[in-house]
């Protein structure tokens, strides 16, 4: 059961990361996993988005996709 849950979580994270890439959010896997965890705890997604925007370093071009800030780390 535990293994299945882990596999599910990993798969979910992978899918979410791909979506995130399509949407050009500029998030890396680890950050994303943290965000998902926070969302699961009922944190307001819009507030979280605002926080990420505020804290992440300013982008070079407002419209260009941003390379991940740090190398993806496994959760």
């Amino acid at each position, binding site marked *: 059961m535990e293994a*299945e849950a882990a596999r599910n979580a990993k798969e979910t994270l992978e899918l979410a990361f791909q979506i995130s890439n*399509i949407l050009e*959010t500029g998030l890396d896997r680890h950050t994303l996993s943290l965000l998902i965890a926070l*969302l699961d705890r009922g944190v*307001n997604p819009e507030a979280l988005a605002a926080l990420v925007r505020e*804290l992440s370093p300013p982008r070079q071009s*407002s419209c260009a996709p941003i390379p991940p800030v740090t190398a993806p780390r496994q959760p």
Partner: protein
Amino acid sequence: MDDPQTSALLRELVLRLLPAGSPFSPDAALRYARRLLSSRLLSPSSLPADETSLSDSIKRQLALSGRTSAALAFSDLLHKLSMLSGPGSLRHRPALLLLLKSLSDHPASCVLPSLPLPASKKTAVQSTAGGVGGVLMLSKDPDNIREIALREYSDLAIEDAEIDEQTLVRDVLYAAQGIDGRFVRFDPRSDGYDLPETMRVPRSMRTMVRRLCELGWLFKKVRGFVSENMGQLAAAEVGTVAQAFCSALQDELSDYYKLLAVLESQALNPIPSTGSSSGDLRNYLSLRRLAVWLAEPMVRMRLMAVLVDGCKDLRGGAMAGAIHGHAQHGDPLVQEFMGRLLRRVCSPLFEMVRSWVLEGELEDLFSEFFILSQPVKAESLWREGYRIQTSMLPSFISQTLAQRILRTGKSINFLRVCCEDNGWADAAAEAAAHVGTTTRRGGLGYGETDALEALVVEAAKRIDRHLMDVIHKRYRFKDHCLAIKRYLLLGQGDFVQYLMDIVGPELSGPANTISSFQLAGLLETAIRASNAQYDDRDILDRLKVKMMEHGDGDRGWDVFSLEYDAMVPLDTVFTASVMKKYLRIFNYLWKLKRVEHALIRVWKTMKPNCIASCIFAKEGMGVKVQFVSVLRRCQVLWNEMNHFVTNFQYYIMFEVLEVSWARFSEEMDVTKDMDGLLAAHEKYLSSIMEKSLLGEKSQGIVRTLFALFDLILRFRSHAEMWFERIYELQIRGRGKSRSKAKDEFSKTNSWLEGGRKAMMQLAGEFIQKMGEDLDKIAAEYTSSLAVFISQLPMQQHVDLKFLLFRLDFTEYYSQLYPTK
């Protein structure tokens, strides 16, 4: 928030997000994060529960930015995500989507550069960087409040910008077909398409939409015209030219539809957002591109609308003329377009011209042609049957060409109706072959005016020649003219002489006792007796006696006249009014002839050698001298009258009739068409009228002339009376002298002497009376003649001056009555 696990997660997130070398201390950043998450602006209640709408919105956004493949991948991933279930899977999928969407929205916000989002962000960062963090501080910070307000505004603006350019393009395309779009609607108040006032759209965009929507307005107008006309088609109120016009417009409109269809398919391609370097080079349609695409159709549509306006109340040739007026344009685009249109519009008109010129058919159901036919009798077919309707004459057909077209068709109809001739068909075919135009339909078009002219000229030449042939050869126009001249204008001298001799006694009676049958018989006799009998029977049969309307005191002379029945088709030339003129001339000449005839008759009785000069020889010298002097005066007066009449008649016969005839017959040989012939004849007749003092201007002088004629006739009747008496006296005198000579020893000598004396006295009185009458007539005659001669130089016509020279050759009269 108070959950320690959450705090730990949050802390880790903050540490992870904070870039190295950031001015924030991790603690401050964490505090800021906590405050942000618990702020009222972002309350959890605003969480959208609807996953579908959220994913749709993301897909639309992806598609809009030209990344359809990304949109496809996205929906695929989303599907997979929703497939996962059970422990470890996502509990709040919508929340994740919302988070990602808000993060990806951020760069998309650069669509609205007017919103100072980056600046607000900066200030927010700086305000927190100032180290004055804290919940209270943030909510009170004016910069932050402004930021929040701005953000709200930007959200609103983004919502408004939902009317993005693509929607507008589609709306404009709808409007261009006269259909109301989602936003762009027809406003009957301002009579045009427009965006609603309430809609917030950049001004430039609004202007462009308005400009493009002019097309829709124009289109509506043109389509309205076409459908209106097509609607009336069943009621048969629309002329062929209008039909052609409508069909040409319809074709133009269908071209236009094609263009719109292409544009519409392109409009489905999303407009790439500014700066997105997706490298997508597919055709897409922005308002500006649309403006370029529609520039040319706009010119055309505008032209069509102008034409529609100009032609609303016109029909037929007038319509073609109006359209032609617009074709005179320097722009090659307009020229080419108008040429195409006009070729279509004019084709029915040219077809009418062709069939009129070559077949004489007037296929004009809607009275559109510039030639109008009127139902008339055969004799006035040429003059009144057809005429040119100037209002229907298009300006590209000149007046002369129109006249020629009219005449050609008229000739054909004349040949067909009046002459019952079919030879014209060959002439027409020959003409068509010569020009190289087929006799089929649609051989001519607009812009080939030269070809049309050539066709018309050729057809006119041949058909006119054929008509002249028929008129001259088959109907012997010249013979009839000559016959009229000989009989009606008294050119055949011996015939006139006989007629005068035979008819004279008959005509002296009152008009109402004369039978025209008897006169017809006498006419026949006169013909038999004169050289006229060798004339053609056909011509002689047409000669008839005509009795004019007569009043109470009219004598036969006043009402008698000859008539010539010209019959179809020559009655086109010799119409009733022309014959009336001939009648007037005949009556005039007849009177002149009668006066001359009367004078000559008188001479027979008063010739000096007819009167025995010695009748009163033996008797009293006084009476004899008196008689001789009266006789002499009488002869002098006669001579004067004779001089006048002879010269006048000479003038009429040789200077008027023959000269006019010579000119007429010359022109008759030269002229090539019916109109020319008519004109020549008209000229002939009017020159006779004018020169023989029958014109309008010579009414005064002709009255004097008639007075002179009356005086001469009075002189004649008096002279006849006088000489009757003289003969009577002569016979009695001779009888007396003879009886006296035989019966010398008669006892009744004294009685005889007495009777003789009485007779001499009677003769004396008579001669006295005669002398007085003669003097009276002579005085009147002299004064009338003086008036006539003084009036003569005032006549306009130059030939009349020669009459004066002739009458006054020895300048006797000019010396007698010196000009005042």
